[in-house]
Structures are given as C-alpha cells and as structure tokens.
C-alpha cells in the first residue's frame, strides 16, 4: 500500500498521460487550419487591392496589427459562444468570426 511503496512510482503510475479523443483532435486541427487559412486569405486579398492605391502604402503593417488583435478577440468570443451552445460547431463559428474581422478591418481602414 502507499505507505510502504515508493510514492513517486505510484504517482507516475496513477497520473499517466491521457490521450485526447480523435474527435477533439480532428475538431481542433480543422478549426485551427481553417482559422489560419482564412486569416491569411483575407489579409492577402486586402493587401493586394489596397496596395494599388498609393495612399494605402503605409497601412498594411497597421492592418496586420488591427486584424490580428480583432481576430483573436472575436475568436475567443466565438469560442465562448460555442462553449455555451454546443450544437454550433466550432469551425463554423471560427469562420464567421474571421469573416466578421475581415469586414470590420476593411471598414476601419476605409477600403
């Protein structure tokens, strides 16, 4: 029993690493993949159109900062909404979040 056995060995046996379910892995991986793809696509699309106008040449760096911060905030908001409404899939919520960010970013930068 514990008092005669090596406690560290017992702890190592009791606290074994736990594998996440395949469902969680798939969901997270898809969500993160979609999130990064959408963010990159929206950013590239905005940059290419904005750079045609010389007045916008100083703005892309600011856009990255604004977009990145807003995206993070919205992603978390979406994630919390998903936490409360589990019937809504995380991927769709994240996609909507990114689209909202892209639209917001364009409005704020006058594009």
């Amino acid at each position, binding site marked *: *029993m*514990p*008092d005669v*056995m090596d*406690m*560290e060995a*017992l*702890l*190592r*046996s*009791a*606290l*074994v*690493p*736990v*594998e*996440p*379910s395949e469902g*969680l*892995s798939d*969901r*997270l*991986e898809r*969500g*993160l*993949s979609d*999130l*990064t793809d959408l*963010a*990159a696509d929206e*950013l*590239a699309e905005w*940059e290419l159109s904005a*750079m045609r106008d010389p007045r916008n040449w100083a703005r*892309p*760096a600011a856009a*990255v900062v604004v977009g*990145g911060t807003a*995206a*993070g*905030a919205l*992603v*978390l908001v979406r*994630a*919390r909404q998903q*936490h409360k409404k589990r019937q809504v899939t*995380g991927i769709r919520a994240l996609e909507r979040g990114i689209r909202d960010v892209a639209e917001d970013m364009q409005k704020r930068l006058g594009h």
Partner: protein
Amino acid sequence: MLPHTTEKRRLDGDFTELYRTHLRDVYSYAYYRIGNHHDAEDLTEQTFLQAYRHFERAQRESDGRPLRPWLIRIAHNLAANYYRDRSRRPQTQLEDASVVSAPYGTEELAEGREALKEVLTGVSKLPDDRREALIMRFALDMDNREIARALGRTEGATKVLLHRAIKQLEQGLSEDTDA
C-alpha cells in the same frame, strides 16, 4: 505575396507544430485538473485558441526557450476561471478508469488498482498549487524549471512545493489506511 503575409504563414506553421507536439500535455493537464473529459475538451480548445491569439508575442519573448510552460500557464489560468465562475471543485472520481492501468500482475491487480485510485483521490484533495505541481511533474513529465515557469515561481520554491505535496499525500494516505 507580401513579406508580412509570408511571416504570418511561418507563424502559423510554428503554431501548428506547437499544437501537435503539446496537445496531449494540455489535455492531460486539463483532465487531471478538472476531472471529466467533457470540460477537459472545452478547456483544451480554449487554451489553444488563446495561445493562437498571443503566439507571436510569446514566441518573440521566449528567446528560444520551450513554450510548453507558457501553454500550461494559459490552461492553468483558464482552469482557475472555470472554478471561480462556476464555484466548482475538482471531481474526486476521475470518470475514466482506464487511466488506472499500472503494470501489475494478475494477483496484485485488484490491490494495485485500489492503491492507484487512492492516490488519485488523495491528489484531488490537495491544495490547488500542490495538485497542479504533481500533475505537471508526473503526468506531463515537466522538470522543476518548466513547472516554475508555468506556475510563476522560482525553481527553489517549486522544489519545495513538490516535496511538500508528496509529503502531504503520503500523510493523507497513511491516515486513510489507519482509519
């Protein structure tokens, strides 16, 4: 493609690598911290989403050091909010008995499983900081330096914390056996 878009793709690639390397660590931490798979999955998702939000800065400031303690610290903070918001305590019984799967022989199996269950119950009764230190050490195999960074303590204080956690656990289990 513009240079900062390329930089974003590099960051995303690095983040994907971080995620793949440490998903099991974050999930294990969340599971032992909270005690059920459903909420552990939520906590894991939120941890990685928050990590994604702050990844660029964390990578810049890490100065080449491993980012696992930073990830676990995010999970630690979210878990604290989880308990504060819901006025919950960790569940004494972990819902998946498969974690109690030590290499015992057939004759010792029942007794071994019982001993491990007692250990898990004892761990769940420890103060939060001691319980977390044990989870990081034994479930995640983190060294003192990593645990210290995750908990925001010095290495010396972490060593003492672990020592006291094990002593308290031993004492609690002895009392239970005597009773």
